[in-house]
């Protein structure tokens, strides 16, 4: 009887943990939004300084640009090579530009950039905040009446979101460039032809839906990392666990949210 109940208990436990995570991240984001307004209009000392925001943007984003560029260049190239045999069969090899541009701008650009940024920004934010919890720094902030949400979470969420959008634009362009390079060298599609096809097929809404996704992914990566980092218990082991959980949970959450967005955009005809 007891053994028969075990799977139900495990499912129940997992459901409770999932709801706790969603609730915790939701409350953190709500609090961050409330504090963001205060931070932007506060007096000098409490106001979010541009130097602090820039430092965070530099930390979470700038260093990930070469990696995102390389990964998306390769993905553009892979897509071109994968599509070539099928398109050649139908005599439509010049359509390679259509497929790559839509796939990269609408889907792969934001998603792949977000996954790379999860490794860069998410893991680093969770480890940093977790270490601050362990070394009593977060408690010291509270004891000094400095809100950790305002002081730590708001700049990180803002910086990650801004950088996520910027990195996606760079990633999109590199993906197109990867497809173009392969098309020109191996598939015999000329630069002019590739460019014309790309501009013909792409619409502003393809670009915008990709950027909306990128912004939401940025909020998701940073909010999960901040929540899991600030929830660290139990020393170095806890920090390691939070970092791993951040990367795994964020990737799962990104793909789930991506599916949701794609379904909504499809339903709205966007």
């Amino acid at each position, binding site marked *: 009887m007891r053994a028969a109940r075990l799977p139900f208990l495990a499912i129940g436990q997992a459901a409770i943990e999932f709801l706790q995570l969603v609730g915790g991240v939701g409350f953190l984001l709500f609090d961050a939004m409330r504090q963001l307004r205060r931070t932007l209009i506060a*007096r*000098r*000392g*409490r106001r979010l300084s541009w130097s602090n925001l820039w430092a965070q943007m530099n930390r979470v984003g700038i260093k990930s640009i070469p990696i995102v560029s390389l990964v998306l260049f390769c993905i553009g190239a892979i897509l071109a090579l994968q599509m070539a045999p099928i398109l050649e069969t139908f005599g439509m090899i010049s359509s390679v530009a259509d497929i790559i541009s839509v796939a990269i701008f609408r889907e792969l650009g934001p998603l792949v950039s977000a996954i790379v940024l999860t490794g860069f920004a998410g893991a680093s934010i969770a480890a940093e905040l977790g270490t*601050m919890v362990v*070394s*009593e*720094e977060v*408690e*010291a902030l*509270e*004891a*000094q*009446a*400095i809100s950790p949400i305002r002081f730590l979470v708001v700049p990180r969420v803002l910086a990650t979101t801004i950088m996520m959008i910027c990195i996606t634009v760079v990633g999109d362009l590199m993906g197109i460039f990867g497809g173009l390079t392969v098309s020109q060298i191996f598939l015999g599609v000329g630069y002019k032809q590739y460019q014309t096809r790309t501009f013909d097929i792409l619409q502003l809404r393809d670009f915008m839906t990709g950027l909306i996704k990128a912004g939401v992914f940025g909020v998701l990566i940073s909010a999960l990392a901040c929540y899991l980092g600030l929830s660290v218990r139990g020393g170095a082991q806890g920090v390691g666990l939070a970092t791993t959980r951040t990367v795994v949970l964020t990737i799962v959450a990104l793909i789930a949210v991506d599916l949701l967005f794609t379904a909504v955009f499809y339903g709205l005809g966007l």
Partner: protein
Amino acid sequence: MPDNIAIKVLDVTKRFNGRVVLDAIRLDVIRGQTLVILGGSGSGKSTLLRLMIGNEQADSGRIMIGGKDLRAMNEAELTRYRNNIGVLFQSGALFNSMTIADNVALPLRQHTDLPEHTIAIMVKIKLELMGLREHADKMPAELSGGMKKRAGLARAIALDPKILFYDEPSAGLDPVTSAQIDQLIIDLNRKLGVTSVVVTHEMDSAFRIGDRMVLLDRGKFIVSGTAQELRESTDPLVHQFVYGLTEGPLTDRRRDDGYEHDLLDS
């Protein structure tokens, strides 16, 4: 609440995962005095300190600050209270990404409208008081354990608090550095009239700095009194703790913890 009482702890109970960590604790922190909270590891003394600074909430009972329950304070009242206290954490809890000067300047930048040059002067004064002025531009990682504690203390007094809390101020320090920290605590108390609450298990340090002492054991209040009263106590538990004896109720408890049964069962 009489005027001379800075903090009144009334029947405070705190549980973690169903385990009672503090059991109906009652004590008064007298204005201008240094109260030392003594107890072994796991006695609940650090939890009591966290409750008094508002970083944890009691499950029952009240902590009264100037006639107002800490738990019932709104955000603005809690901020005002916290601007009147300073806390020295066990590790110093300096912000590792900032220099020592920026650590001390942080509460001034966050809670005052002072211009940057005035803040710089105040930071220098606080650091000089702690003998750290020449280390202002160093990062916390470059400082020794004792210097980190002194830098943490400089940050704790940045806003000229009325009450200072110290969590294990001499833990992990050599005897000379430990005595220096004790002297700083005494100076702040005597010269600036600051009320101090010190959590420690080191008796030498407690006798040097404490006006009054409270002993906790496994979350329960055992005794309170002056250093002299604790030294002369006939209670075997107090006697063992104060003199650090290897025989007594604290060690007998370990012997009666069912070790033989545990061995025979396995």
